[in-house]
């Protein structure tokens, strides 16, 4: 019983409510948002320390005994993800001061960000499957606001499709929860895991597993269900895109990771094999998209799809090494995607176009931007000392342990395609003849955009170089994913 773990959810929610007042006072809006996120970050770091020292923390609302009340569980997996989410949100909001536009700032942009963080952190923390649905809706509702905010034609057009896809996937979620409830008669995730073990996963549970894969796969953008992502994500402005690209799909990935390690662990030959195949096809589809486009936004957006495939490949192996790799890669990908979106945001700001063919020669005028982009690009592909390396190494190592030799080699090969796709931006935008340059580039604005981006790239470097320091934390996370009994024990006995 520890209320402390609610801080990363409550603080953004509280500040979101405060920010709904005083819309026109920009200084107040900006400072309050950063202050709220900073407080939440401190809370989340404290939570990581607490979880590391004392094991998973739980709180069951209303002091009901464990399986009956709604439980919030903070184990190492969720504590790390919550912390990453808040840190990224801080930098993205900071970056947004210069690029989101004053009109949006005056119309509930900051409350929208705070509520989306509430939803994301809640989804990472909750230990109740229906509560997960509710937090999904909280973050979706905020994301509907953010994607349409500004009311440009492209935004209106794409947000209709985005909402429609998500409404359908939410309906599926409700249906799946109903099926699951009718079979196991409980909603607490720990209790579901225990009940499924008792009945030894009959066929109907496998059907439910596939339904869950559809529901969360729609959010996470896995192979047949990623069709909505590229066009929907290219509509909103860069800070919103960074927020979505770094956080929203990862919530879906987390949900798949959680359900597939906690509930559906008895028919691995079907469920995890399916996940494996889908993750490999997801990577192929993402690679094709990333190489085919000449639009910088689209290239990075398709890289989201590739990363989702890599993480889920790690989950599909179901051994400790690969799951540790998946955790490493998940956090890495959140950081590096936010950094990349912010970098290409600056590139788009300078050149005034998203078309690679019109860009060129930025290296002469903006060498620092070029070098930082290069570091981020190498980090994304997983070049050794940088952040993507450890995760991918462990995932592939886990793949070899699970005897998936060819698909593991395929994952390694896909890194080359990732490298090629992001290097293409580097070559076209930074090398060669001077390309198109926007007329109203302001040096102060550029510096203000560049500063938070630079810090975020430094964080990603630190994450890669300082892997040694966080290995114990990731190890804790992997242990929980491999051995669900740690999770269920923490929930069931946490009430006392």
């Amino acid at each position, binding site marked *: 019983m520890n209320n402390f773990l609610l801080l990363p959810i409550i603080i953004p929610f509280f500040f979101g409510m405060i920010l709904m007042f005083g819309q026109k006072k920009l200084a107040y809006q900006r400072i309050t948002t950063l202050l709220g996120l900073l407080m939440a970050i401190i809370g989340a770091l404290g939570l990581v320390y607490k979880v590391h020292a004392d094991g998973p923390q739980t709180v069951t609302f209303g002091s009901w005994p464990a399986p009956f009340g709604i439980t919030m569980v903070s184990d190492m997996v969720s504590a790390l993800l919550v912390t990453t989410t808040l840190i990224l949100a801080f930098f993205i909001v900071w970056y947004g001061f210069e690029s989101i536009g004053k009109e949006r700032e005056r119309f509930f942009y900051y409350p929208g960000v705070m509520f989306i963080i509430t939803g994301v952190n809640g989804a990472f923390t909750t230990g109740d499957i*229906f509560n997960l*649905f*509710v937090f999904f*809706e909280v973050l*979706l*509702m905020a994301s*509907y606001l953010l994607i*349409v905010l500004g*009311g440009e*034609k*492209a935004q*209106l*057009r794409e*947000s*209709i*499709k985005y*909402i*429609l896809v998500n*409404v*359908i996937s*939410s*309906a599926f979620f*409700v*249906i799946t*929860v*109903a*099926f699951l*409830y*009718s079979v196991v008669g409980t*909603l607490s995730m720990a209790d579901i895991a225990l009940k499924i073990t008792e009945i030894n996963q009959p066929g109907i549970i496998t059907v439910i597993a596939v339904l869950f894969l559809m529901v969360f796969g729609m959010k996470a953008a896995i192979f047949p269900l990623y069709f909505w992502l590229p*066009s929907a994500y*290219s509509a909103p402005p860069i800070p919103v895109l960074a927020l979505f690209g770094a956080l929203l799909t990862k919530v879906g990935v987390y949900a798949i990771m959680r359900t597939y390690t906690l509930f559906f662990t008895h028919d691995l030959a079907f469920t995890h094999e399916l996940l494996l195949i889908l993750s490999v096809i997801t990577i192929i589809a993402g690679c094709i998209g990333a190489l085919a486009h*000449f639009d910088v936004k689209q290239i990075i957006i398709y890289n989201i799809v590739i990363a989702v495939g890599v993480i889920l490949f790690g989950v599909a192996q179901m051994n400790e090494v690969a799951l540790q790799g998946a955790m490493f890669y998940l956090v890495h990908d959140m950081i590096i995607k936010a950094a990349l979106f912010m970098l290409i945001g600056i590139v788009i700001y300078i050149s005034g176009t998203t*078309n690679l063919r019109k860009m060129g020669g930025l290296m002469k005028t903006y060498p620092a931007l070029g070098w930082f982009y290069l570091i981020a690009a190498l980090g994304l592909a997983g070049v050794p000392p940088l952040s993507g390396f450890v995760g991918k190494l462990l995932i592939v190592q886990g793949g070899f342990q699970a005897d998936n030799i060819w698909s593991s080699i395929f994952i390694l090969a896909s890194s080359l395609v990732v490298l090629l796709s992001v290097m293409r931006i580097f070559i076209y935008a930074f090398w060669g003849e001077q390309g198109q340059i926007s007329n109203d580039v302001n040096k102060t604005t550029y510096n203000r955009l560049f500063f938070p981006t630079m810090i975020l790239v430094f964080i990603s470097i630190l994450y890669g170089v300082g892997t040694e320091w966080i290995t114990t934390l990731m190890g804790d996370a992997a242990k929980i994913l491999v051995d669900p009994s740690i999770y269920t024990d923490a929930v069931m006995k946490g009430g006392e």
Partner: protein
Amino acid sequence: MEIIMAFVCGFLFMAAIYLILSRSLLRIIIGTGLLSHGAHLLILTMGSFKGSAPPVLSDGVTDYVDPIPQALILTAIVISFGVTAFFLVLAYRAYQELQTDDMTLMKGSEDHE
């Protein structure tokens, strides 16, 4: 009773899918409404119709309905209500801005290569 409900749910889903696949934005929104109705009815059915008594449990009472599905439906109804309201406003705004409610005219982006 479960069989009838299964057919009703199926019919609602069928109608919802038909409407969602149509071109008019308003029909699509009505379709999503029907879809969530079907889902809610499904939760109710999954709670089973055993017992005619209210969902109240106290000592000595053996005849009661499972209260959880009803609580779930209540939550889900509120959420789908909010989403539908937002969707309708968005559709109106999009109609004003784009001068059409036909989904076939809303695809792709202008700046294709």
